[in-house]
């Protein structure tokens, strides 16, 4: 357990304290260092509440969230926030700076870093997300995908250990989304970054190491994409899973397990040889 970066223990929350119904009840799970975890669930499952609890915008009624072994509370929150980046849903509502580079530097100014250090970090973060040439631009004139890249640069500049994506890609078109996912994969490759995706997009969840399925404020399942996907509803399943189910429905015999697109292509190709 020494590797646990996020530890959620017996977490409960309700918005209206007089009401019986809890939004989240007795949630417990662990996220390890370098792991990418996706938290999925339908509307009203409590996943956005969980996101707000994880970044300290809400306080739990019961239970504790430990970040790198420290309980998340009023005393530790600012120290934790220097190591934890959060990206919210609407890219238009998140810019504080009037230019791309000013916005990326915002967290660094809050950390009271010296000017040269900020220059260096802003520069590197913008190059990493491929937005260096836009540094002087007004972020509101960028495309949706570019705006997201700027937000990610703002987080990377902090050199964080944890990033939380709260429905961060749902407003984008599929192409920009796929491009950003490969950026995320790159970021995760170092093994130093722990990522939490809160999403209803299964293509995003498919990239995670593990998926937590929330339902009515409770964890209904934790597992790898391969373990979780065969049980999801049709609308929520990723493309390769939908195609696999459709082929089975049409009387074909395919493996009874989730396959990624690459695996499915491979399987279909080989099937051609065997017949």
């Amino acid at each position, binding site marked *: 357990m020494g590797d646990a970066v996020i530890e959620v223990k017996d977490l409960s929350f309700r918005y209206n304290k007089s009401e019986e119904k809890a939004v989240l009840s007795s949630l417990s799970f662990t996220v390890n260092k370098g792991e990418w975890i996706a938290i999925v669930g339908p509307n009203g499952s409590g996943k956005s509440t969980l996101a707000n609890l994880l970044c300290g915008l809400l306080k739990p009624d019961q239970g504790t969230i430990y970040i790198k072994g420290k309980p998340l509370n009023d005393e530790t929150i600012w120290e934790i*926030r220097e190591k934890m980046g959060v990206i919210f849903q609407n890219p238009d509502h998140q810019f*504080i700076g009037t230019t791309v580079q000013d916005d990326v530097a915002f967290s660094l100014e809050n950390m*009271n870093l010296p000017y040269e250090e900020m220059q260096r970090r802003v520069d590197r973060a913008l190059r990493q997300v491929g937005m260096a040439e836009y540094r002087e631009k007004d972020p509101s004139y960028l495309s949706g995908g570019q705006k997201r890249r700027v937000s990610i640069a*703002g987080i990377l500049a902090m050199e964080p250990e944890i990033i939380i994506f709260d429905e961060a890609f749902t407003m984008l078109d599929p192409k920009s989304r796929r491009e950003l996912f490969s950026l995320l994969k790159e970021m995760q490759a170092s093994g130093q970054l722990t990522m939490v995706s809160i999403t209803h997009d299964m293509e995003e969840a498919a990239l995670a190491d593990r998926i937590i399925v929330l339902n009515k404020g409770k964890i209904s399942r934790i597992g790898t994409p391969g373990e979780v996907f065969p049980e999801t509803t049709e609308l929520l399943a990723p493309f390769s899973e939908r195609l696999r189910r459709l082929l089975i429905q049409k009387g074909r015999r395919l493996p009874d397990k989730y396959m990624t697109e690459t695996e499915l292509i491979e399987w279909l190709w080989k099937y051609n040889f065997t017949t």
Partner: protein
Amino acid sequence: MNYLLLGRYIPVTSILHKLDPRTKLISAVLFIILIVNVNNGAAFLALWGIAFLVMYISRIPPRVYFRGIKPILWFIILTAILQMLFTTGTKTFFQWRMITISDYGIERGLFIFFRFTLITLLSIAVTLTTKPIDLTDGLSFLLKPFQYLKVPVNELSITLAIAFRFIPNLLDETQKVMDAQRIRGNEFGVGSPLQQMKALVPVFLPIFASTLQRSEELANVMDVRGFRADQKRSSFRQLQWKKMDTLSLCIVIVFIIWIRWLNIHFN
């Protein structure tokens, strides 16, 4: 609605645009002090010359400047007329009870008119050529001494910066809400003033709602990105004082001395 856009930053390349905001702010303040104290025709003539020079070197057409005066033009004219009607002088052209039109009154009225228009023109020159964010940086730098008087200069400047940042958003939002209501048959600018006011009522609610929602989202973003009002922050935006600024300030001072001299000499 368009009045709000007047005096908004216009991105063109000019010497005035390139100057440090502090230079422009200091110069504007010096000129304003000067204008308030000037009281003869020669000095006003010179000031008008400078005003046109400023417009010329800003590379923004004078009509943009004069459009900026328009919303307050009636106020200026009214003040000037009142000044004219209630001042007595050596020669009286007309008199009826309290009201007199005299040589001195006409002069005073004209000077008042010039003062207001000149001050407005020079202030607009600053806002047209300086990005709001640079203006905020300049202001907070110049206000720094007031920190010792417990004025929360840092909080003020970030508040101002965010306010400036969101003015265009608010305007866009208003446009969007009005469009959304035109689509549903609500007409603006048609009918009696009462009808026009009534048409605007349903516009305010969505704007308030979205502004509230947005500020909440923004507060959350600021929070998770580690902003604390009471903590010391460094600044990524650095003001750069260049040779050109020193030179410009010198020119401004020379002009000011010259006009002071004109003002005394021709009195």
